[in-house]
């Protein structure tokens, strides 16, 4: 976001188990179509400009593989993304359960930041008759993750589709702003100086982590939302 000023570019990763409808959700949002064909994703990327709260924002969306054999690719896009849509299918309880591990990995990669912009998305809400995950069940999960918002979507009917992208985008923006405000403040000594962990290398070839100073974040506002249709 160093190129701020002109236009903000935010990276969002859509992740979740295989076959929950990540690509359908993304294609519905970006291109306004519903994909019917059997077409598992390996890694696709899209870009879309949207307006959020009166600001123009460029979203770079990474649609990822749900197939577990590709898990070793995860780390790359988790590092890259600013916000995440964690998608499951309301017709499969295990698809929700699998997200816990992903969420943990995200938090860990973001340096232990529990407030990474995340939206929990229960897709296929049009398949009510096959529902295996109750709303309260999913909502409970979203609360356990620090009150992240929960939406139920139908990529087929384009229900709540733009909403989830806008929501995650708004979270990123809020975080971005608070960081900008903070950065104008006085320099403070680095974190983790205790117990022999200061970096004594004369040249540090390593880049600074973006998220490793979470203790300066302003307390996250209380939010507790559950958006269903």
């Amino acid at each position, binding site marked *: 976001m160093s*190129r701020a000023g*002109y*236009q903000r*570019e935010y990276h969002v990763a859509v992740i979740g*188990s*295989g*076959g*929950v409808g990540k*690509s359908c959700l993304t*294609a519905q949002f970006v291109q306004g*179509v519903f*994909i*019917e*064909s*059997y*077409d*598992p*994703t*390996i*890694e*696709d*990327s*899209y*870009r879309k*400009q949207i307006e959020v709260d009166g600001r123009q924002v*460029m979203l770079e969306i990474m*649609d990822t593989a*749900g*197939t*577990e*054999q*590709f898990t*070793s*690719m995860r*780390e*790359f896009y988790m*590092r890259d993304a600013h916000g995440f849509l964690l998608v499951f299918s309301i*017709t*499969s309880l*295990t*698809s929700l*359960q*699998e997200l816990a591990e992903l969420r943990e*990995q995200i938090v*860990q990669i973001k*340096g*232990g930041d529990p407030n990474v912009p995340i939206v929990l998305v229960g897709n296929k809400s049009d398949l009510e008759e096959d529902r295996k995950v109750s709303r309260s069940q999913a909502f409970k999960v979203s609360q356990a993750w620090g009150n992240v918002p929960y939406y139920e979507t139908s990529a087929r009917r384009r229900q709540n589709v733009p909403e989830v992208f806008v929501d995650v985008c708004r979270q990123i923006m809020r975080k971005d702003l608070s960081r900008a405000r903070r950065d104008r403040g006085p320099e403070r000594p680095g974190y*983790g100086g*205790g*117990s*022999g*962990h200061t*970096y*004594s*290398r*004369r*040249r*540090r*070839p*390593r880049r600074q982590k973006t998220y490793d100073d979470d203790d300066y974040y302003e307390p996250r506002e209380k939010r507790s939302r559950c958006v269903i249709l």
Partner: protein
Amino acid sequence: MAVSMLHTPSRASTSSGSSMLPLNRQTTMSSHDGTRSMRTSKRYSVTALYLSMNANQRDLEIEDDLARAQKALRDLKSRISSQSKKNFVLEKDVRYLDSRIALLVQNRMALEERDEVASHLDDATDLSEGTFPNDEKTQKYGNLFFLLQSEPRHIAHLCRLVTMAEIDQLLQTVMFTIYGNQYESREEHLLLTMFQSVLTYQFDNTPDYSSLLRANTPVSRMMTTYTRRGPGQSYLKTVLADRINSLIEIKDLDLEINPLKVYETMIDKIESGGEPLPPGLQKGITAEQAAANENVQRIIAPRIDMLIEIANSFLDTIIDGLEETPYGIRWICKQIRSLTRRKYPDAQEQTVCTLIGGFFFLRFINPAIVTPRSYMLIEQIPADNPKRTLTYVAKMLQNLANKPSYAKEPYMVKLQPFIQQNKERINKFMVDLCEVQDFYETLEMDNYVALSKRDLELQITLNEVYATHALIEKHSAELVKDESSHLNQLLAELGGAPPQLPRKENRMINLPLYSKWETPIDDLTAALDITQEEVFFMEAKSTFVMIMRSLPTSSVVTRRPLRLERVAEAAATTKNDSVMVRKGIRAMELLNQLQELGIVDKEDNYALLRDEVEQELVHLGSLKEKVIAETQKLDEVFRTIRDHNTYLVGQLETYKSYLHNVRGQSEGTSKRGQASKVLGPYKFTHQELEKQGVIQKSNVPENRRANIYFNITSPSPGTFVISLHYKGRNRGLLELDLKLDDLLEMQKEQQEDLDLEYVQFNVSKVLQLLNKRFARKRGW
């Protein structure tokens, strides 16, 4: 008499223990001979049985080139089996620690958790061998595991019941222990039967076609684990490694065809040249705008051609590798086809191919292409450009297999020619993939063979035994609906499952397996549905083959056509070789018996038997070549697996040292008195480090490299000073302080370059070097 031999304890084929490897054991890996009739397949198996039994009576053992080659191959296979299991376990440990260490490095782990991690590490090394606490338990667990092994439906059922958290442990036990002899047809076939059962269930319980085989389920976990076994590994290596390696060498080859990315790179280049952006070129444009840019189009066009060429070359090797494809993988493709046809009778051929592609390419080939390092195909993580190219190749292959009607990313449409060109080829390939024989016949045979043996056993850890027991117990309500079932009886006898032992008390045991119910088969002919005549015939054939293999090739009687009675006589009169004499006499008896039964005729020189013996010998001749070729191939696989093991062990060692170090520090100042000793300096030449791959790039001119050397010192555990020297000068040119934490963090972030201005070190290799040279007893 022949039948009574079944009771003699024999090693037979636990890992194909016979010195004469029968045909049907050879075929686990690929290419079942489709023409063999059921009858002959039985016959072969019976021959196999005889040969294996005879050969296992030590005094009758044959010692020729073939036997030695086969023995070497067998040993290699069992080493691969056990090594790949070790790696699987180590990988789990490393994965666990990978995530923990990251937190620790960032100083975010609570002290207690730190200790827990450390305890996890303490016994990550080899388990000591031991025995079961008592004989009764040994026997009962032996019965249980025999049942689990020989009736795969129980485990198949269990796989559907367990949670995703439980499944990894279960699959480890199943794939690497219960069916751990990866090259043994019986175990492989039983494992595949289990696959089939789980697969069928999944087809029956997936509501719509588009979600078939998509979710991460027990089946997909099984696939992941299955591809880690020897045959899958060796296939990927043979078919893909060369292609991938030649591709990643060209680090600068940028084949990006996403117009947005191309556009951005173009802009960045202009900007970094210090020039202002020409009018009309702005940032943050849409995909359509980028695609419409003429310069972008000009850059992309040749890249499209190149990508198609590369993808074609991958496709070529995959298609050419049809016969190399592991039997199990092909057989699963076949099951997918028949299940699809059964569930959707109207499904088009294309639909079937799509689903096979959703397995073969999505779960097996493409993951290895996209992340070749995790599949041990390459050593280093590829640079960004080749990595992106590999992703494109995988995407193209997947598109080809699935032929989606809609291109999600519009720019991928440009690659359509690849799909048009190869449509028919790929469909034919998928059909060919499924062309393998079923194994039910041989499985039945193998099970008889197994039952006839007294020494089936499993190498298993106590904790694996207890964990499996606990899982079955937990899900017993679902698993054993029938109170009188064998499984239920065994569970009742065993009582409650013991808790898991601490890692220190865990032991590797040899668990003898036997059935509580079936008794060894007394009547082989009835069991196998063959006649006594055939039994005699088989025994005669195998006896003659063994005699022929033992006779010196210079002997007159080995001339073709064979005169069987002379061969027998020559054997019976061999001097100083009682075994041969016995074989000779037996051969004569058998000839007479067969003559009396009217099966062979002395008048035509026992032509029927003679021809089969001669054919068998020809077959054995070519068998030797095959055995040697296979050994060479597997040698390579073994080496790869072992290298990977070295890497994993090294990684664990590094973590271990690091943890000890951190804990040492947090244990407070009291220990600081016993200041740790300075280690080093150790001297390394430029040449040495270059050879070891520690130096991955050098800016030192060739003619000066001989004068460059490095000193590495460790002033205290976990800290290192690397200095670069030029011969003849007192002071070093450069000095770098390093902390283990930093190196680990760099490694964790996949950052491979450690810049020393004159040279660039490879982070992983530096870690390995430090690990080797500075390993202190407790920490570094």
